[in-house]
Each structure stands twice: as C-alpha cells, then as structure tokens.
C-alpha cells in the first residue's frame, strides 16, 4: 500500500511511488511541483503527491496556500514552473470522452445563463462532438444522479444556489469521468445545503469508480468527505501533512457529531495551527 496513516506532521515525507511505476492506478501524480509567478511570488514549493484510484482526497489549507493553483495544475489548466504532473502515468490528461478522463467543478456554478440546464449539462459532450441522440441519455442520467431531472428545461437563473451547483456537478458527471476535481464547490452555500450536498457527493463517490480531489478550507467538510486529507501550509504553499481518515464508509448525519469525527477534526485543526502560526 502506498499510502500510510500518519499520526503527525513529523511523519513526512510520505512514501511516494517512483515516477516510472506510476500507472493506471494513479490518476494523479505531482512530482516536485513548483509554481512561481512572474512577480516572484512562490505559490507552491516542491509539492510531491500521489493520488490513487478510488481515493477521496481533500486539499485542506488556509487561503493563499496554493491549493487552488495545485488543483488547476491537476486539471491541466496551469503549467508548473518546475516539476511535473502525471495523469494515469501519462504527461497530459486524456480528452474527456476517451477512457480515463477528468472533469472539474469550479468555485461557482459557472453555468451558461443563456442555455437551459440540460444544454449546460450537455456542453462537455457537445464540445467533444458527441451526437445528440447519444448524449441525451447521458445528460438525463447525470441530471437524475444529482436530483435535477425535473429541472432540465429551466434556465439557470430559475434555480437556487444549491441547485445551480448540482447542475454544475451533473455537467461534470455527464462525461462519466474517472477523476473529479472540485475547487471549493460548496463554499458559497449555506450550511444546510452544503451538508446535504456533501452527503450526496459522498454517496455518489462511494457508488462508482471515481477518484475525487476536493479543495476546501473547512476542516469539518474535509473530514466528513475524505478518505485522505492533505494539509497544506501557506507562504510558500506546501504539503505539511498527509493524513488518512479512518471513518466508516457509510457516513450519515450522526457521524458529524461522533467522537471519532471530532477527534479527527481537532487533530487537523492542531496541525494547521502549528504549521501556519497565528491566523492572520
């Protein structure tokens, strides 16, 4: 097993696979990735991280720790200044409709306001020139999966914030990705909606062959959702701890108040405080 439970920040660095052994079981592998902006700001410093097939990994850290930058690199939207990222052992992510593929959910729902929900969800398939006869069933399935099947013919503005986010997730799922990257997707939602979406996302992940990388700055969300939490520190952005969450597979509302859950949260909170000093 490549991953091990780490009891504290001192247990770093985590054992990592050698670059040449990274293959189909490793959807994402970041090797000594750095990001320095042209103004000299170092956003990421020597990040080494392997994400295995079927994991739900949260990148947890304060704002400015480079977790969103790292996720953009994982999406292929940004290039590292040094080091490299591998997708299933290859040096570029596959196109969305071919076998191993990735999809991304952004901080905002980013739906096209001029298109109906179903057309928004169909967009990735349209862009890959999937014929409509073929894509319709995928769109319907994705909408059903997020509970929006009754809303396929409405415009995004007619949906609540939470439902817009569901539509955004449906769009990501329409291509049936193996790797789902999520950048603080529920950050702008109220707590009830957020908890509900967290729990639905968790079930979705458990029900299929899906690897999720989830960026968040909420310790509770990270512990509730993840099978593993990567704690990041700021200035420069770096990995400071890599922790397996040994919670049950089925996580209901009661889990949110269980002693095990609270203990995990307390530990992460301590780690974050140690690494980042006083909150600013």
């Amino acid at each position, binding site marked *: 097993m490549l991953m091990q439970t780490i009891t504290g920040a001192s247990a770093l660095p985590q054992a990592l696979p050698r670059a040449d052994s990274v293959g189909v079981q490793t959807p994402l592998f970041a090797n000594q990735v750095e990001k320095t902006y042209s103004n000299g700001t170092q956003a990421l410093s020597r990040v080494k991280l392997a994400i295995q097939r079927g994991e739900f990994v949260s990148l947890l850290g304060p704002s400015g720790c480079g977790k969103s930058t790292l996720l953009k690199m994982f*999406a*292929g*939207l940004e290039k590292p200044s040094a080091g490299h990222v591998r997708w299933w052992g290859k040096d570029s992510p596959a*196109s*969305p409709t071919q076998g191993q593929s990735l*999809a*991304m959910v*952004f*901080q*905002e729902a*980013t739906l*096209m*306001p*001029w*298109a109906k929900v179903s057309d928004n969800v169909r*967009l*990735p398939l*349209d*862009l*890959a020139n999937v014929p409509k006869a073929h894509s319709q069933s995928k769109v319907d399935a994705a909408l059903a999966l997020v509970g929006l099947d009754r809303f396929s013919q409405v*415009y*995004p*503005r007619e949906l609540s914030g939470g439902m817009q986010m569901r539509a955004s997730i449906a769009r990501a799922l329409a291509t049936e990705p193996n790797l789902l990257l999520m950048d603080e997707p529920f950050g702008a939602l109220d707590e009830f909606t957020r908890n509900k979406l967290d729990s639905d996302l968790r079930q979705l992940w458990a029900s299929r062959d899906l690897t999720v990388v989830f960026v968040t700055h909420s310790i509770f969300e990270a512990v509730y959702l993840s099978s593993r939490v990567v704690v990041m520190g700021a200035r420069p952005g770096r990995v400071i701890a890599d922790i397996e969450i040994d919670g049950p597979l089925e996580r209901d509302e009661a889990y949110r108040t269980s002693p095990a859950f609270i203990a995990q949260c307390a530990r992460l909170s301590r780690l974050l405080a140690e690494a980042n000093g006083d909150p600013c």
Partner: protein
Amino acid sequence: MNPSFTPWLRHPTVLRIVSPLLLGAVLLGLWQLACVAWKVPVYLVPSPVDIGRTLVSDGPMLFGALWMTLKITFFSFALAVLIGTLAAFVFVQSRVLEASLFPYAILLQVTPVVAVAPLIIIWCSNTTLALIICATLVAIFPIIANTVLGLRSVNPGLLNLFRLNRASRWQVLLRLRIPSALPCFFAGLRIASGLALIGAVVAEFVAGTGGTGAGLAYQILQAGFQLNIPRLFAALLLIALTGVALFSLMAVLARLSLRNWHESELG
C-alpha cells in the same frame, strides 16, 4: 397617487405606452390652445392642426423624402452592423491587432462627419453612396466598441471549462463569446440605429442635394428658405418618429433574444 384608487395606471403596459401618449396629447392640446389664444403667426410657430394639414397636403412629397432618408439610414445601419461586427471579431483575435487598429477607430469617431462629408461627396460621384458612407461612419463606432467589450466580457470560469474540455477556437467563439457578447451588442445596436439616422440627415444637409432623390433634410432646408414653417415642422416630426420607431425596433430585437436569461430584459 393612491394605488388602490387608480390601479390601471400602475399596470406596466399602461405605464409604458398609455401614459406617454396621454402626456403627448395634453401637450399638443396646450400648444394648439396657445397658438389660437395668442394668434401666433403660422410662420413663427404653426399649431398642431396646421402641421397635420401640411402633412396631408404635402404628403406625397414628404413621404417620398422620408422613404429616401429611410433607405439611407437602413443601408448605412446595416453596413455599420456588418463592418462593425467583423471589425470587432478581428480586434478580439489578437491584442496586437486591436492595439494597432483601435486608435484609428477612435479617430473615425471623433472626427465630425460634417467636416468629412464635403470630401466624401467630392470623391463619390454617386450622391446616395456618399450619404451612405457618411452615415455609416457615424454609426459604426458604438457597434465596434460594444461588440469588442461584449466579446471580451466572458466569464473566466466558463472559459476554463471550455479549455478543460479542449474546445476549439471556433467552438469558444460560437458557443461562448458570441452569446456572452449579445447584451453589449444590442446596446450598441440601439445607439447605432439612432446615429445612422442622424448621420443620414446631417450628411444630406451638407450635401444639399435636391431633385428627385431628395431626403427629409433637403425638405427642411427648402422649407426654411421659403419660410414654410408648417412643412418644416412636419418633416421634423417624421424624422423624430423614424428615430423612435428605430429605437423601439432595436428594443424589441434585444428583448426577443435576451428575455430568457439576461438581467436587463427580465421582469
């Protein structure tokens, strides 16, 4: 105003259409009354009834002139939309292109058409063509500026989504940039439609062309020389109504294409 007492006045359709018409009628009535009461000579301020009578008696001549002005306005508006939109597409293709071309578009905009018109009229043997060119010059800038702004105001998240899904340049243009640009484009249309009419009238003033192909501007000039003030007012009225009609047409077009999604046309 007590809303329970006069609820019909608060109805949006009534408010938008009936209330300005009502105000217009009242003002016309006052105007007529003032003209009659103070016996204002018709060569100074004609009464609405005088103007209406002229509109009927000089009808064939005035509506012929209106048709000419309308033709020039529509041609130059269509040209401005066509060339302006194409120019905007070229501008957004590269920053270098925009940087080198945009100052000249501004130059075009700030040079008064009255000053350029004599040159264009000398260069073009065909007067109608010269008038169309002048009016196009006046109308084109808001189309270019607004369409460029619209094509650039694309949600960066959506742009990332398109990139993530390996969208081609063509797909980004067709499915993202053009729909995003529509609200700004229609705002540009609204301004340009009015400017095309102004351009057509101003250019004709400068050209001073008469004969069979004369437009409303020429009728105004002639009526002024002959102190035929009721005809002058009648021609003025036709120009104003044309402008309002054009503006409303653009508003309807904008509403038809944006009503489902854009904030400006909701409710």
